[in-house]
């Protein structure tokens, strides 16, 4: 029985890690699997477990074979364990072990540090599935619903990827951590997810797109940094996850872009030129640009908090150990050890924002966050190009990094999106100018009516330029099979 189950099970899990000959890990995964499926049933997308969704499944890791598209019911999705191919002769790219051969096993001295990093990364994956579980009910099209589910199953797969590392390399505490991943719940009072932004609600589709754009982008940067790890299995895992993460970036960036486009079109059709004429714009059944800016402010700043403190000895240790690198570490032209370098980091002292040079080694988080901001700005530029093309005068902006923060030097500092320091009272008073108010949320919520007819889109979002897998406009991305 065990024998045949194992074989069957191996075929159920696409993998390129030789699972069938690794009986210990296989057994551990077999034990974990029912809990995962139960978790997916309880905490995954609500109401669509029986629907056939046109999903892409990764079945191998070479560029031409990893995106296979077909209809599948989500619980039957082939969650697999896929690592990017091993690079011959790869060396540790940073820190005190710089240049030594990359580790294929966990080095004892860094065991707990590595485990912690993997657990934190792993915890975010199921968290976002939980946060988004009700969104399918209000999907503005089958196309968007399909994209949501694609993101969800791939976040699920990313959990598998981290669980595999825990079970393969961290013995019984790894298995315990793997179980904990299914026990914690986003937004739970008793057992919340580990990071703040992953306990926030994703109440509507604008939030979802902003979340995938800003918060998944933090995930991307963390994966980029872990892809530079001297622990080779972690590096390879993250490199392959990044290929999938790109689709999530795509969903976020184009989702927001399509909302902006629809708003601009509707304004032009109605002859409204003032983007701040909010009531009139909203009466068109689209989301006004100032509200989009508020949502951007919220999600960007929540995501900045995910990078941790600007100056951090933990981050320094991880870098120095060669366990976590910087963004595109191997492309950076320096000694990769940072013993004598400095990096500019902000400070908030006596109600003033200042910049001081700190040892670069301690500013690893800050640097990754700067790279993130740069990266995030790219999409904002494109959104603005759309607005400009529609001849509407409005510029979306990333707020100042001191605005609306809960972590690091700017924790609770009364700083405006433009970077002005004001009094706490003034800040509280003006908060609803910068962040979505309850009324804003209610308005957006009022637009969230499902549109499930193939090829049709809700009033507040433009259709995409091309279909997924080059499918035509009226393709039935989700076959609902509603009872």
């Amino acid at each position, binding site marked *: 029985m065990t024998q045949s189950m194992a074989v069957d099970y191996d075929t159920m899990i696409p993998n390129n890690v030789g699972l069938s000959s690794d009986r210990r890990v296989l057994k551990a995964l077999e034990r974990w699997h029912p809990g995962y499926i139960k978790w997916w049933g309880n905490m995954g997308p609500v109401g669509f477990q029986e629907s056939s969704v046109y999903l892409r499944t990764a079945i191998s890791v070479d560029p031409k074979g*990893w995106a296979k598209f077909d209809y599948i019911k989500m619980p039957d999705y082939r969650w697999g364990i896929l690592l990017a191919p091993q690079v011959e002769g790869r060396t540790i790219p940073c820190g005190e072990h710089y240049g030594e051969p990359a580790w294929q096993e966990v080095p004892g001295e860094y065991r707990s540090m590595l485990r912690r990093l993997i657990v934190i990364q792993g915890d975010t994956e199921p968290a976002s599935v939980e946060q988004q579980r009700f969104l399918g009910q209000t999907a503005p099209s089958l196309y968007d619903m399909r994209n949501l589910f694609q993101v969800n199953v791939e976040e699920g797969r990313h959990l598998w990827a981290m669980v595999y590392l825990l079970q393969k390399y961290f013995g019984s505490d790894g298995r315990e951590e793997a179980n904990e991943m299914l026990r914690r719940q986003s937004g739970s009072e008793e057992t919340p997810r580990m990071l703040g932004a992953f306990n926030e609600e994703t109440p509507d589709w604008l939030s979802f797109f902003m979340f995938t754009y800003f918060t998944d982008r933090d995930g991307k940067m963390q994966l980029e940094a872990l892809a530079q790890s001297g622990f080779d299995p972690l590096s390879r895992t993250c490199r392959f996850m990044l290929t999938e993460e790109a*689709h999530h970036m795509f969903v976020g960036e184009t989702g927001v872009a399509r909302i902006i486009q629809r708003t601009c079109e509707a304004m032009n059709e109605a002859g409204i030129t003032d983007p701040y004429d909010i009531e009139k714009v909203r009466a068109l059944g689209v989301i006004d640009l100032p509200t989009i800016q508020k949502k951007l402010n919220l999600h960007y700043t929540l995501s900045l908090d995910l990078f941790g403190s600007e100056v951090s000895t933990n981050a320094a240790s991880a870098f120095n150990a060669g366990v976590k690198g910087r963004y595109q570490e191997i492309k950076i032209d320096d000694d990769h050890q940072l013993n004598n370098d400095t990096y500019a980091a902000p400070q908030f002292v006596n109600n003033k924002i200042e910049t001081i040079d700190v040892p670069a080694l301690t500013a690893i988080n800050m640097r990754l966050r700067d790279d993130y901001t740069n*990266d995030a700005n790219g999409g904002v530029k494109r959104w603005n190009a759309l607005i400009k093309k529609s001849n509407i005068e409005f510029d979306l902006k990333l707020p100042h990094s001191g605005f609306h923060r809960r972590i690091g030097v700017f924790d609770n500092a009364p700083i405006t999106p433009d970077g002005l320091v004001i009094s706490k009272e003034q800040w509280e008073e003006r908060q609803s100018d910068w962040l979505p108010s309850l009324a804003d949320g209610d308005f957006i919520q009022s637009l969230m009516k499902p549109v499930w007819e193939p090829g049709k889109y809700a009033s507040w979002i433009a259709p995409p330029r091309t279909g997924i897998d080059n499918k035509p406009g009226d393709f039935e991305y989700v076959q609902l099979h509603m009872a």
Partner: protein
Amino acid sequence: MNMAEPQKQHLIDPEFCIRCYTCEESCPIGAITHNDDNVVVDASVCNHCMDCISPCPTGSIDSWRIVTEPYSLEEQLGWMELPEQQQFADQDDGPDAGLEALDESIAALLAEAHEGSGQVPAPSSASKSSINLYNLANPVEGVIQGNYRLTSADADSDVRHIIINLGNAPFPVLEGQSVGIICPGEDKNGKPHLPRLYSISSPRDGERPNANNISLTIKREELGVCSNYVCDLKKGDTVKLTGPFGASFLMPDDPQAKLLMICTGTGSAPFRAFTMRRQRVLPQQNGALKLFFGARTPESLPYFGPLKKIPETFLDTHFAFSRVEGKPKNHVQDELRLASGPIAEALKDPQTYIYICGMKAMEEGVDAALNDIAGKAKMDWGTLKDEMRKSGRYHVETY
């Protein structure tokens, strides 16, 4: 003016790229790089291996421009959107074969098919062909309108006339062009099948005048995955096409032009198209078309029936059968020699265009026959052929 040869440049559409750098990671030769705004492809490094295409989540990677001078990295890094495709002036002052296809693999197939003539320009009066409106990533879907066996039931070969309706999709073709057919499924290595190329056998305005349909002439190959797939398609089935392809094996639009068409088997496809085009636009133009057509038997010769109905005065048809019981083997070159008088006249005429299409094996015999016929008429075939090639009057498409 000595312009550089036009080339295909791989670009990334900056309007839709989300800067995930997945392409950069998947490029095996480091041809892709980026700044904060854009991800760009270095034309001097990119070898069109296409490894970056499928991992791209947006499709922005699948962007191409025909350029004489590739866009530099600096230019690309500053773009907010792709530049328009440059228009090229007609280059009728030199041996410019034009681009036959933008897909590397299809271009290679066509180059191989045209080996017999080398790179030759299209006839100077030929209409300009459109190429690559559809590719593997963006194919067009057609619906089978008809699928008829052309060879008689007892013939040893199954050649089929397949009519495909393109619906509302724009699909401008010229006689002599080809289309790619994408056979669904995967090969034994688990890769999707690459498109197979088939010549269009209908004229530019459709199998029926002004219908947006095309016909193909396809022989069922015993182990041919694609030919069996197409030959088994039923009316109403859909099929994915790429193309059109081809920019040199085209017919002249000049009403004075005379065509000498030499083919075997399904090589008759483009000549059916040429002939139908002439029937539609110049039905009174007698004595301008000659067809030398080889097959094993009359039963296995595609379009044997319809061809026999075309008046000799309009289309001077010569059949050569190599396997008719009780008769000596007869090949197209033998028929050419039999008609050496009129052929020699044709060779002397600067309005004559020669087209050879069919099995590669026929080339040598045809060339020898033309050489003999020219020699007897005191012409040097080598020199003449070269002249004809340069002026776009000698075309070979064999496989």
